[in-house]
């Protein structure tokens, strides 16, 4: 307990949740739980709250718990009520409200009256015999209670009878209790006296079997819900739950109160009581002949039911007699092709097959018989391996037994040689490249180029350079293009050396610096006036556009070294002392083996450097060079072997370029000839195709 003050009406602590009010036996008023009434012959409903301990046999009564006493106390305290005390409904939800009649029907009263001793004695032997045979079935409290009732004694609550039964009011008391479910309440033995005809309700009269009068077996009564007062008394059994605390109906209470018939015999067992009730019921003679509707008797056929007895709603739903069989339908003439589609019935072959008699396929025809091998084991025949195979097996064996014969070699058909031009083309081209080298070099008589031609302007640009000036040469071609570009480079370098122009070489291609070094070494071999570092220098490799952009923006880096790997900066070389940026060069000579390096120089250097640029290009880059030349971005250019040959002629230094031009001319002539021949062949073949189609 937390000690928190709580309200008086609080049951649980508001802070810690502990229970404030100790658990005690609830007052009687709180423990009365409404239960659903029982309808007709339905099983008793299980109460929501734990029910009272069930009624146990006599030997177990000591373990019984006391029954709630509220309603019993009321019964005892209440004045003896009439037998016609009103039966108050226990709950408004009762579907079968208890009769509110204040009076117990007289017939019920008579039923309660004990039968004559003679009758009782006559009935006793059998029930008594059964009781003796089954003494344990009837609880002791019932036997003692009935005996006491016979004697007019009130059953003592101290006996072994259940508490609720002990507390039942005596016959003198007429407690006004609420009607309870009679099926849950153990009913005491009570002889029932037959009632008069006037007291029997009509519906009960109607239910009285006519066979009783006619000595016919009583019809099966419909399972109609019976009022609570009409239900037969409950026969207590050990397995049944104990009755609830509901008040005992007056009629039930009165049954237990009325004294038993004066008999010295022991209390009748429950079965005996029921038999008595049945006997009394059978002995009941209605004042009037009850007209049982014909529809209620099973022996009557529907046709015998009188129209007046059949309600209208039932009359209209009478079964319709089956009509006569319909007239035979005329069969239509079915076409033969449709008739052929009709599924065939059992094949005639199967009709000759025996019918299976056993197993799941009994009754079917054409069932494959079970192999004997499945039914019982069988031994392998000794001649299984040596037995002659049949059919295909014999044929296969004959093939295997036949001697192996080598298959005759299939003569390979020699495929006709496909005549192609390729080897002839190669041969012609090779001859075109070899033979001109054997001829004199001037046999082609190349004319001197015009000074206004691109080659002439290129030569002029170099010739206009003052002696001692410095030019930048970029060797941007691969070894694969060296055959064409080296001739240009050698002619240009030789010209520059002749004019005493200082050369600074570089390259934007990885293999360019070595190409440049070879050219410079070849050009300066044997010339002691040209010294590396003083007259010419190889700067090495600058990565494409980024290197050109850096060259334009910042010039040569102070820490840059040359391509020879000499461990000294560029500024230490005399040739580079006065050259720090591109503007310090008089001319830039770009040797481009393709159009990309030329484009890089035109885009990165020419617009920003402000230095004239001339180019020696491969024949494949001539269209682009023409565009830059026309836009005056490129001052001059020479193209391919022809340009090299023209420059050699202009610079008066005939070399390998002039010879190479002759060879190239012959190769080009062969190529032109091949193109012409190919077109002629194509046209001829095309005309033959068209003629063939025509």
């Amino acid at each position: 307990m937390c000690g928190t003050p709580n309200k008086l009406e609080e049951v649980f602590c508001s802070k810690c949740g502990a229970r404030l009010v100790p658990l005690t036996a609830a007052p009687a008023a709180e423990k009365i739980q409404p239960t659903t009434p029982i309808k007709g012959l339905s099983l008793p409903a299980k109460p929501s709250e734990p029910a009272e301990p069930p009624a146990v046999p006599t030997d177990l009564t000591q373990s019984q718990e006391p029954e709630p006493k509220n309603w019993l106390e009321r019964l005892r305290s209440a004045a003896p009520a009439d037998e016609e005390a009103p039966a108050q409904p226990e709950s408004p939800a009762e579907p079968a409200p208890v009769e509110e009649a204040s009076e117990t029907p007289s017939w019920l009263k008579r039923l309660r009256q004990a039968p004559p001793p003679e009758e009782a004695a006559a009935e006793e032997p059998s029930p008594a015999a059964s009781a003796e045979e089954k003494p344990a079935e009837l609880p002791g409290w019932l036997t003692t209670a009935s005996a006491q009732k016979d004697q007019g004694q009130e059953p003592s609550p101290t006996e072994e009878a259940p508490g609720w039964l002990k507390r039942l009011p005596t016959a003198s008391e007429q407690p006004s209790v609420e009607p309870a479910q009679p099926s849950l309440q153990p009913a005491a033995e009570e002889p029932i006296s037959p009632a008069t005809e006037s007291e029997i309700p009509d519906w009960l009269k109607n239910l009285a079997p006519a066979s009783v009068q006619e000595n016919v077996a009583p019809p099966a009564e419909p399972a109609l819900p019976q009022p609570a007062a009409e239900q037969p008394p409950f026969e207590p059994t050990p397995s049944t739950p104990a009755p609830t605390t509901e008040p005992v109906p007056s009629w039930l209470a009165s049954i237990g109160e009325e004294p038993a018939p004066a008999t010295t015999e022991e209390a009748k067992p429950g079965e005996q009581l029921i038999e008595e009730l049945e006997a009394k019921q059978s002995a009941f003679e209605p004042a009037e002949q009850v007209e049982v509707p014909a529809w209620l008797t099973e022996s009557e056929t529907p046709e015998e039911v009188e129209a007046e007895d059949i309600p209208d709603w039932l009359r209209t739903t009478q079964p319709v007699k089956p009509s006569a069989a319909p007239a035979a339908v005329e069969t239509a003439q079915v076409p033969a092709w449709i008739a052929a589609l009709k599924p065939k019935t059992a094949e005639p072959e199967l009709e000759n097959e025996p019918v299976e008699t056993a197993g799941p396929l009994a009754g079917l025809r054409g069932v494959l018989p079970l192999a004997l091998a499945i039914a019982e084991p069988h031994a392998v025949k000794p001649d299984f391996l040596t037995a002659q195979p049949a059919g295909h097996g014999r044929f296969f064996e004959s093939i295997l037994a036949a001697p192996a014969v080598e298959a005759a070699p299939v003569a390979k058909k020699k495929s006709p040689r496909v005549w192609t031009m390729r080897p002839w083309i190669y041969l012609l081209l090779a001859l075109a490249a070899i033979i001109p080298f054997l001829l004199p070099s001037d046999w082609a008589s190349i004319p001197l180029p015009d000074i206004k031609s691109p080659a002439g302007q290129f030569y002029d640009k170099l010739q206009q350079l003052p002696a001692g000036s410095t030019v930048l040469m970029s060797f941007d071609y691969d070894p694969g293009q060296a055959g064409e570009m080296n001739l240009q480079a050698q002619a240009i370098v030789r010209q520059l050396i002749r004019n005493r122009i200082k050369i600074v070489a570089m390259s934007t291609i990885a293999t360019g610096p070595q190409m440049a070094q070879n050219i410079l070494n070849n050009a300066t071999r044997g010339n002691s006036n040209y010294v590396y570092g003083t007259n010419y220098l190889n700067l090495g490799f600058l990565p494409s556009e980024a290197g050109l952009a850096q060259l334009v923006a910042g010039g040569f880096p102070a820490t840059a070294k040359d391509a020879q790997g000499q461990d000294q900066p560029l500024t230490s070389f005399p040739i580079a002392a006065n050259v720090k940026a591109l503007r310090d060069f008089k001319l830039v000579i770009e040797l481009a083996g393709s159009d990309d390096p030329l484009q890089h120089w035109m885009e990165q250097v020419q617009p920003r450097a402000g230095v004239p640029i001339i180019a020696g290009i491969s024949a494949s880059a001539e269209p682009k060079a023409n565009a830059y030349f026309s836009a005056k971005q490129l001052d001059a250019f020479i193209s391919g072997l022809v340009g090299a040959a023209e420059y050699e002629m202009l610079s008066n230094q005939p070399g390998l370029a002039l010879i190479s031009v002759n060879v190239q001319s012959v190769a080009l002539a062969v190529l032109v000839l091949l193109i012409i021949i190919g077109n002629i062949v194509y046209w001829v073949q095309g005309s033959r195709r068209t003629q063939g189609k025509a």
Partner: protein
Amino acid sequence: MKVLATAIAIAFGFLTLLTYFFRLPMLVELGRVFTQWAVILVAFALILGLANLLRVHLSRIVRRNEPGMGFSIVVVVTALLVFVIGMLFGLSNGPMTWIFDNMYLPLEGAFFALTAFFLATAAYRALRARNLGTLLMLISALIVFLGQMPFVNVLTGNVTADLKNWLLSVPSEAGVRGILIGVALGTVATGLRLIVGMDRPYSE
């Protein structure tokens, strides 16, 4: 991480672009520094190319039973041998020069020379007048071929040379200029998209 890469690309691209429009000393110096970094990155790309080449061929050697495994062995051995020689003796000294002059140059030249024979075969088979377009191309090719031969020019009185010069100066030059301008405009658009951040090839 993608946001950081995009931010760096936008910042550096925009600053480098500004150096072309404003000659502020700080911008010029900043542009020079960025350009140096680009030169270093481009030079480093060559090393990456070599590494990728070795990786491809080494994987082919390891897998074995692959066609061309022998050639992959030759490539890897040669590359490593030349690399080691260059590191030991330098680029301009004897061994490297000898390898370049006596192995690399002849092989490269011979490979380039083979294209002439392939070109001749292709010209015989492809340069056929099947329709008007191919006919025009055939005529243009013949004119250029003939204009490249000096003795033909002499024989024709420089007619073929003039035709060739006209062909290269007028229709060919027009086409080339159109291509150059189109490529330049595309380059500008691509550069702007990279600077603005619309295209992010580096972060994908």
